[in-house]
C-alpha cells in the first residue's frame, strides 16, 4: 500500500483509556469555545434572573431569611446555568450520533466507558464555566467569598454538572429524533429549576416593605427552629404538594449545598445533600456509560 498513511500498532483493550477520556473532554471544550451563542445564553440568563428579577423582586421582598432576594437567588442562577450548559452538551449527542462524529466513535474500538466519561466531564466543565458568570456578580450583590469558598463552589458545580450531563446523556440515548432544544428547555430544565427552591424558600421568614420589626426574643426563638430573619416579615410555608415535589427533586439538594457554600445558609438536611452529591454523580455516570454502550450493537 504505497498510498496509505503510516501503520499503527494494535491497541490494548481496557475500560479506562485516558487518551480517549482526554480527547472527548477536550472536544467538548473546543466545541464550546467556538459557539458564542452558548456564552451569550449564560450571560443573558444571568442578567435576566440575577439582576432584573433579583433586584426587581428584591424591591418588594426586602429579604428572605436575612438575605436580599438577589443574594438568595444567586445559587439558583448558578444552578440554572449549570442545568442549561450540561443539558445542551448532553443533548447534542442525539444530533451527533445521527449526523455527527459519534458514528465514527461507535465504529472505533475505543471503550465506551471512557468515551462517556470524557463527554460528561466535558459537559460538566462547560457547566462550571457558565455557572461562574453569575458567580462573578457576587461582589455586586454583597456576597463575600474567599478563595476556599470559590473552590468549594466549583467542586459542587462540577458534581452537579456531572450528574446532569450524565442524566442528559441517558435521555439523549433514548431520543431517536430531535427538532430543537425547546422541548428540553421547557420539559426538563425549567421544572428542575422551579422545583429546586431556587427562587422561593421552602420555609422561613420573608420580609416585605413596611413590616414591623420582629422582637429580638422572638427572632432568637425562631432561630432555634432554623428560621432566620433580620428584619420583619411573614412566615412562609409552601403548600404540601409543592414541598413534596421540591423534596423529590435531586437538584434541590445539590443547589442547597451550593447555597450553604455561597451564603452559609441551607434549607435541606445536610446529610441528604452530602449523600446526593456523593452518590448521584457516579451513579448517573455508570448509567450513562451503560446507555451509550448500548448505542453500539443496537
Amino acid at each position, binding site marked *: *500500500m504505497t498510498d496509505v498513511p503510516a501503520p499503527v500498532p494494535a491497541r*490494548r483493550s481496557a475500560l479506562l483509556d485516558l487518551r480517549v477520556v482526554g480527547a472527548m473532554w477536550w472536544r467538548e471544550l473546543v466545541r464550546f469555545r467556538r459557539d458564542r451563542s452558548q456564552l451569550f445564553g449564560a450571560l443573558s440568563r444571568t442578567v435576566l434572573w440575577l439582576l432584573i428579577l433579583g433586584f426587581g423582586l428584591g424591591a418588594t421582598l426586602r429579604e428572605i431569611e436575612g438575605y436580599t432576594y438577589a443574594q438568595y437567588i444567586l445559587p439558583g442562577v448558578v444552578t440554572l446555568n449549570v442545568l442549561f450548559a450540561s443539558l445542551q452538551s448532553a443533548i447534542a449527542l442525539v444530533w451527533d450520533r445521527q449526523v455527527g462524529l459519534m458514528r465514527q466513535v461507535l465504529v472505533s474500538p475505543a471503550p465506551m466507558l471512557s468515551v462517556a466519561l470524557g463527554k460528561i466531564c466535558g459537559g460538566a466543565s462547560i457547566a462550571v464555566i457558565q455557572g461562574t458568570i453569575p458567580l462573578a456578580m457576587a461582589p455586586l450583590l454583597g456576597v463575600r467569598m474567599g478563595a476556599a469558598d470559590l473552590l468549594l463552589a466549583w467542586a459542587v458545580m462540577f458534581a452537579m454538572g456531572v450528574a446532569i450531563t450524565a442524566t442528559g446523556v441517558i435521555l439523549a440515548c433514548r431520543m431517536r429524533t430531535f427538532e430543537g432544544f425547546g422541548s428540553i428547555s421547557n420539559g426538563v430544565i425549567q421544572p428542575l429549576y422551579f422545583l429546586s427552591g431556587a427562587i422561593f424558600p421552602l420555609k422561613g421568614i420573608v420580609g416585605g416593605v413596611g413590616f414591623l420589626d420582629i422582637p429580638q426574643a422572638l427572632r432568637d426563638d425562631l432561630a432555634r427552629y432554623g428560621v432566620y430573619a433580620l428584619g420583619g416579615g411573614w412566615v412562609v410555608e409552601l403548600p404540601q404538594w409543592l414541598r413534596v415535589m421540591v423534596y423529590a427533586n435531586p437538584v434541590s439538594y445539590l443547589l442547597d449545598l451550593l447555597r450553604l457554600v455561597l451564603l452559609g445558609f441551607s434549607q435541606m438536611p445536610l446529610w441528604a445533600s452530602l449523600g446526593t452529591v456523593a452518590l448521584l454523580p457516579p451513579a448517573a455516570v455508570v448509567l450513562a456509560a451503560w446507555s451509550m454502550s448500548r448505542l453500539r450493537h443496537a
Partner: protein
Amino acid sequence: MTVVECLDLGRSFGDLAAVEAVSFTMEEGDFFALLGPNGAGKSTLLAMLTTLVAPSRGTARVAGADIRTDPARVRQAIGAVFQEPALDERLTARENLAIHAALHGMPRRTARQSIAEALSWAQLDLAAERPLRSFSGGMKRRLELARALMHRPRLIVLDEPTLGLDPQGRRDLWDRIARLRAGGMSVLMTTHATHEAEACTRVGIIDRGRLVALGTPADLSRRAFGGPGMPLEEVFVQIAGRALRDTEASPRDRIVAFHKRGGEHTR
C-alpha cells in the same frame, strides 16, 4: 483469503425484516458493491458489518473476527465512511483526525505523523486548521476517506460514497479508490447508482432485505439476459422490477432535513 463472510445474517425492527438471511463472502482485494433501491436494507446490512447494529439472526465474520462475539477486533479491522459525514463540524480537519487517532489508541508520536500524512493524502494541508463548517462536500469526503485509512484497516466500507459530490469530487473519489485497490485494499460499498457498480469485481443486488443476485457484472448480465454486456441498469431493473419504492423517512432523514433547514446550533 476471505475478508467478509455473512452467514444467514438478518435483522428485524419489530415486524419489519430490514435484512433477511443474507449469506455471501467477499475475498481480500475484492471491490464489492451492494446495489439496491432505497430502503432495500443495504445500510442495515452495512451497519451490522460495522458493528453499529446487532444482527437478530445469523452472524458474519469480518477479517476473521465475529461481529457478534468480537466486535472490538472488527472495529479495528475496518475503516468506515458513512452516507452523511461523521465529522465534528466545529472542529478543524486536524482536530477531527486527532480524535480519531486517540480513539484508535495511536501513540502520540505516531499520531502526529499519521495525521500529517492523512492531511497530505487528502490534499487538505492548507485547510487543516479551518473548522469543517467551511468545507465543501468533496473536501469532507476526502477527509473522511483519509481518516478511515489512518489506522491501516484491512477493509474499507463506504455507504453511498458519491452522494452529494460534484462530478470532479466523484472522479477524484474513484481515482483514490482505484489507487487503494492497486495497493491490495478490499473495498465494500453500497450504492443505488448502477453505473457506479460497473467497475466492481462483484455485485450483490439487494431488494426488500434479500440478496437476490450475486456475481460479477458480466455474470449478472448473463443471468438476466442470457449474455454479457448488458448495462447493469437494465440487469438491475430486470431483477428488481420496476415498482417504485416509497419508504418512510427514518429518524436520521428527519434530523438531516432539520439540519438542512438550518436547524439547531447544538451540532
